[in-house]
């Protein structure tokens, strides 16, 4: 039989469709992937070491830089961890609802970017990504209105929220929510039924449910494999317990199912936002006595349902104003664990789609 040997090619770290400085060494047999070795560390800034030298409040701006597509969610996870560590009492109602509003707005923005750039990898010439980025622009404007900066708001703090929202914030959110469903429908109409898209994404990157759970995969990737696991319902934090929304799951287990889950989640986020806006009470936005955070010795682990999956913060305190150990459970790192499993046996063109459907941010992977 003709002796063919495998070809090993290097994809990344500077590559248009690796969503950041992520590198894969692919071993190919013709066009088919035989093996895949991921490589990280190009964006490693040592946040966990830096955090040990700073106070709990000074660490808040670092959390925006983890998953820089969804800054607010990182703040929320860190804030919940510090509050659990310091044993702070219940937050003022208004702060809780503002947190939910900001977290769900981040989810919308993140899914816009995820779907947009996935289509870019598929080769659609910048049109879907520009529609999505336009929609994200409205959301990011809201963050700038409330916190002063678009992607690194440092708005959600241990103890509540940096400052109350300006008067023109709520009408702007209502105007956005009025237009958001029509945007999602337009995206749906442009993409969901598209035969080329279905041909490219169906049956690609299949991840069976038990393998997904074993690999620690979370978020849309897990729910697209049929496992209805969402931290907002499994371990409700903030005021998610009082809001009703359903966990979007698909049984397709492939890249197309992940796309459908993200579209479904965007619709659910709009529903949550409408409820949160309706029930937003008046009142203070910051718990008292939060100036000097000095938690007692001990440890705490808090996790949230970030747009990409489960984001956890494990903090160990030794009674000083600086955290003793500051560990981040990164969703993208866990989800990347499943990349090799899904890519083997596919063509090179599919590897890009599978990576896009996982939706990773390297800031979170490398920390």
């Amino acid at each position, binding site marked *: 039989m003709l002796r063919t040997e495998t070809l090993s090619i290097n994809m990344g770290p500077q590559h248009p469709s690796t969503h950041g400085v992520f590198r894969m060494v692919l071993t190919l047999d013709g066009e088919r992937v035989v093996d895949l070795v991921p490589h990280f560390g190009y964006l490693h800034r040592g946040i966990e070491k830096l955090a040990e030298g700073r106070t709990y409040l000074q660490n808040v701006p670092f959390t925006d830089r983890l998953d820089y597509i969804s800054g607010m969610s990182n703040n929320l996870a860190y804030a919940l961890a510090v509050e659990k560590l310091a044993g702070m009492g219940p937050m003022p109602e208004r702060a809780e609802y503002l947190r939910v509003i900001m977290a769900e707005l981040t989810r919308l923005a993140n899914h816009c970017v995820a779907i947009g750039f996935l*289509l870019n990898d598929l080769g659609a010439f910048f049109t879907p990504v520009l529609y999505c980025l336009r929609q994200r622009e409205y959301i990011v404007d809201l963050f700038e209105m409330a916190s002063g900066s678009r992607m690194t708001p440092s708005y959600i703090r241990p103890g509540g929220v940096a400052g109350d929202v300006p008067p023109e914030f709520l009408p702007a959110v209502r105007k956005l929510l009025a237009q958001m469903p029509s945007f999602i429908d337009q995206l749906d109409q442009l993409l969901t039924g598209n035969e080329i898209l279905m041909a490219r994404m169906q049956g690609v990157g299949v991840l069976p449910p038990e393998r997904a759970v074993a690999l620690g995969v979370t978020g849309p990737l897990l729910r697209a494999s049929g496992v209805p696991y969402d931290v907002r319902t499994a371990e409700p934090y903030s005021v998610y317990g009082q809001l009703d929304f359903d966990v979007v799951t698909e049984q397709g287990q492939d890249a197309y199912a992940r796309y459908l889950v993200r579209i479904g989640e965007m619709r659910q986020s709009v529903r949550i936002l409408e409820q949160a806006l309706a029930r937003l009470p008046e009142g203070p936005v910051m718990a008292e006595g939060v100036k000097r955070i000095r938690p007692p010795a001990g440890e705490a682990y808090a996790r949230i349902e970030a747009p990409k999956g489960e984001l956890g913060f494990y903090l160990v305190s030794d009674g000083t104003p600086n955290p003793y150990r500051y560990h981040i459970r990164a969703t993208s790192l866990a989800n990347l664990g499943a990349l090799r499993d899904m890519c083997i046996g596919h063509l090179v063109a599919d590897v890009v789609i599978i990576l896009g459907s996982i939706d990773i941010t390297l800031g979170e992977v490398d920390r």
Partner: protein
Amino acid sequence: MPFLNNLFGNLQDLISSWLAGFLPQWGVDLAMMAITTVALLAFLVVVVMYLTYLERKVLGRIADRPGPNRVGPLGLFQPFADVLKLIIKEATTPQGVDYPTYILAPILIVAPALLVYAVIPFGPRMVPTDINVALLFVVAISSVATLALLMGGWGSGNKYSLLGGMRAVAQMISYELPLAFAFLGVVLVTGSLSLVKIVEGQPGYPLALAQPIGFLIALICVVAESNRAPFDLPEAESELVAGYHTEYGGVRFAMFFLAEYIEMFTGSAMVALLFLGGWRGPILPPYVWMLIKVYAVLFFMFWLRGTFPRLRVDQLMGLSWKFLLPLGMVNVIVMAFIDKLHLPGGFLPGLAASIVILAVAGGVVRIGRRSPAVRTARPGLRVKEA
């Protein structure tokens, strides 16, 4: 308005009579040929330059942005800026290059693209030479470009370019066959291969109504032939980030670029001539009608590029061999019957037959899609267990 209608025809008579004054007959013919060639080339280069501008404007507008509007009023000088940039850029030659093929490839890709315009008519007396095998000539010459792509891919000596070149050749070949069948459907009705006679021989209505399947296949194949929109696999490959013209720079790259847009223009011209009734139209002069139809097809191509994701290699091939080719054959057979039966009602029987064929094809595809073999895209492979 008759003068305007036959503007170029009268112009030719005027010049040839003026030349006849002091040149022998063969001299006049020669001079006329030279003038038409120069005029045609000038027209083509300007058209292609403004094709790039038009494409960026349309793609911009699709994506809610204005497109080029900085260089000159409404960005009209943008093409000159692009051409100037390409000419100024240094044409680097990488080391591991197979020099003869590397240099010949750009030349060999532009020459046939221009040569094809020797037979394409834009109006009743506006065709350089009206040979009676014009359609065959066009299909034959445009397949030379396939060879040039392979030479470009192989000549660059870089693994990715070779892969890109191989894919391009496979794509061009597999989409020429359905194209030929689609054209066959038209030749059946008009009875002649000469493009001028094809246009004149068409019945009153555009043939796209009578042979919608032929029209669809031709449209898809023309888009695939010029490596564009959903089929632009070989050159803008997001995975391998390379194409057959990666190693080219400066003017050489401009040649590939020029050839691609000319081929797009040729493809739309052919579709306009054969299926949209060429230059025939109510009040406007013939050559204006022809340009309107050509630019309509071109707009469709830009529109496709702005909307659709790219097909994968095996799906691309599958579409051509398993779907377009059989559909083309069936279409030719059915159109032959309908044409020979001389049914009344103009294009209605053709339309009805095509709808029936499409319905049957849709059913066959749906049955095919459900069979497990097609469903999972992950064939068995000896996989290195972790």
